[in-house]
């Protein structure tokens, strides 16, 4: 048990320190020694994700660190998941995320996408300036749990409303939780357009997404 804890701790520390090579070595050791993968994911990867999220929140980590962390976590998670039987390979939930039509500003969206990946969501990032119908089509195609819509500009906020209106018109609104965010948006706007949640920051978006899949961020 001591050895197990040690290697899992190494995995966690290497992810937090953004050490790609060391993380891979630790995961290979976990797999070769037959250590319980579910425990390794929970204690190694998930806890590292939480600490990375905290560091971002405190201003110790920025987008660059999140990009690297997301790559390391994805790679190691895939290695772990390949050792699990099919039925156990579940992600927390599926999120279709986009910066809405007309808006080319995607920093907030990118931050949330990276954090969601780090936290174990399956993320379909459609990019920026995405037509509303394309977002809806993708959400239907992958059977998403959550649609996350970002808008920085005041004149592109109505495209968030448009996505929700289309969902209503297609009578599929209840199938998705829709969360919105971005510099120009506000809780009042979220209420006005009938969104399920508003996040001031990417971190708030993670908390909302976790809540919608029945998990709490500690």
């Amino acid at each position, binding site marked *: 048990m001591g050895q197990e804890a040690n290697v899992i701790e190494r995995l966690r520390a290497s992810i937090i320190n953004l050490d790609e090579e060391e993380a891979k070595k630790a995961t290979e050791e976990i797999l070769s020694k037959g250590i319980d993968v579910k425990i390794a994911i929970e204690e190694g990867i998930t806890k590292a994700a939480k600490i990375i999220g905290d560091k971002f929140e405190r201003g110790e980590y920025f987008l*660059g660190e999140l990009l690297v962390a997301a790559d390391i976590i994805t790679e190691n998670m895939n290695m772990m998941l390949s050792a699990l039987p099919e039925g156990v390979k579940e992600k927390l939930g599926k999120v279709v995320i986009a910066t809405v*039509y*007309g808006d080319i500003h995607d920093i907030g969206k990118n931050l949330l996408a990276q954090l969601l990946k780090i936290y174990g969501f399956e993320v379909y990032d459609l990019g920026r300036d995405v037509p509303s119908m394309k977002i809806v089509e993708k959400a239907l195609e992958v059977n998403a749990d959550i649609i996350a819509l970002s808008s920085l500009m005041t004149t592109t906020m109505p495209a968030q*409303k448009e996505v929700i209106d289309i969902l209503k018109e297609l009578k599929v609104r209840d199938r998705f939780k829709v969360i919105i965010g971005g510099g*120009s948006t506000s809780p009042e706007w979220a209420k006005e357009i009938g969104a399920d949640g508003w996040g001031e920051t990417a971190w708030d978006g993670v908390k909302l997404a976790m809540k919608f899949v029945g998990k709490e961020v500690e």
Partner: protein
Amino acid sequence: MPVPPWRIISVLHKAETGPIVLEKDFDKRILIPNIKRVVKEYDIKYDPNNPVPSDDSLAKDVWNAAVDLFLTVGTYCTTTQRRMIFTEEELKEALWNYNDWLEIGEGKDRRIWTSRKVEDTKLPGCLFTPVGVRCSEENFIHMIMAYMQEPLADAVSTPILDKVEGGYTKTHSPFEQQGGVVHAQYARQAAVRVGRPGIAIILTGTALSAASQIASSNPIWGARPTDLRLVSVISELKIDYDLLNKTLHFNQYGGIIGTLSGPLYGVYAGIEGTTVIGVASHLQGLLVNQGHFTCYFPVHFRYFNNTSREMLWLVSLSYQALANNTKLISGSNGFAVAGPCTEMVLYESALHGLVSAVSGTAILWEIASASNKHFERTTPMEARMACETGIAAVYSKLKRSDVNEIVKKVLPKYEDKIDKAPLGKTFPECYDVKSLKPSDEYIQLYKKVKRELEDLGVCYPY
């Protein structure tokens, strides 16, 4: 001196022929590592005890780091996924030939803006702005008139028209184009109604896309060549073809172009790195966006403000770096987190104006309220407070060290409330919309805060 435009055709070719790189790789492997590198190499360190630094060598380091960053990284064109790289010689040529004065507006309402130096005794220009706040068609003209009637305003910006003919002015929809045209017409009408028909107006906020911007250019009823038009830097150090189309059109129409630069603190870098990005984005503004001036609004990524301790440091240092090393005309655009008719927004506004003016900004570009995100939650009173205090700093011949002490005394009045700032009131709640008068409550608050600042050594001329 004719710049800008600076070799505009060569710039267009750079977007077509620069080295290809995927955007994620540009961010991860080129931009972010180089931001970290220059902050370390030039040893730039934030000092919370001195929100308005007086260290000229620090400002020089920021300038050198910004030049290094821009020349190493270039500007990323998201449309072609190519890096637009510039040589040192090209940058020097553009900076040398930059026209350091600018004529805006026309007739009796014509004004001249010029570049300024650190602790310059020359007064800065003033632009009064509701920034990007949404506004109903019902209150639109009156809100603009309220801003235009402010005597310090050399120029104004206008809010975003929320709906037109019953439809949201949604970008890329015909309602956007219609909204842009109506917006420009209303703004012109407002200018006539306050007796300032030639005042320079930032146009056209409701028209985000190049197509709608072009549609609102009209010398009779719309955006005139003497008005101000804006082209954004996409955060950070990026551009796209829609923006370059705006640049081309505004230049060919004869308009005055401003670069919109709003680096986000806490995303790509910490406060030191974001300061360097901010200065570097001015270089992109000159060479790529072809801006005659810059609207500079660095903001905290969470609170969307630049009135906190570290953001004021960033604002001050950015302007010191620019003013000591260039002739660039840059407007310091305040973003307050509190809403109108609160003491907090007045303190925030005053400090932003004060710090910007003494640090060398050419234009006090004031000020977004309530983080620029709440319907009709902005008034000219916040801008009045910021501009009058910035002007007073120059009038009082305050130095950076004086302002540093004032900031240190005023910041504690609000810095622990930034994450729970009061939203205050909307324009119709604290203005008589028809007579364009602020409420007595707001006037009393404004007088109280001015008195407090006077006690700290800020001498207002009136």
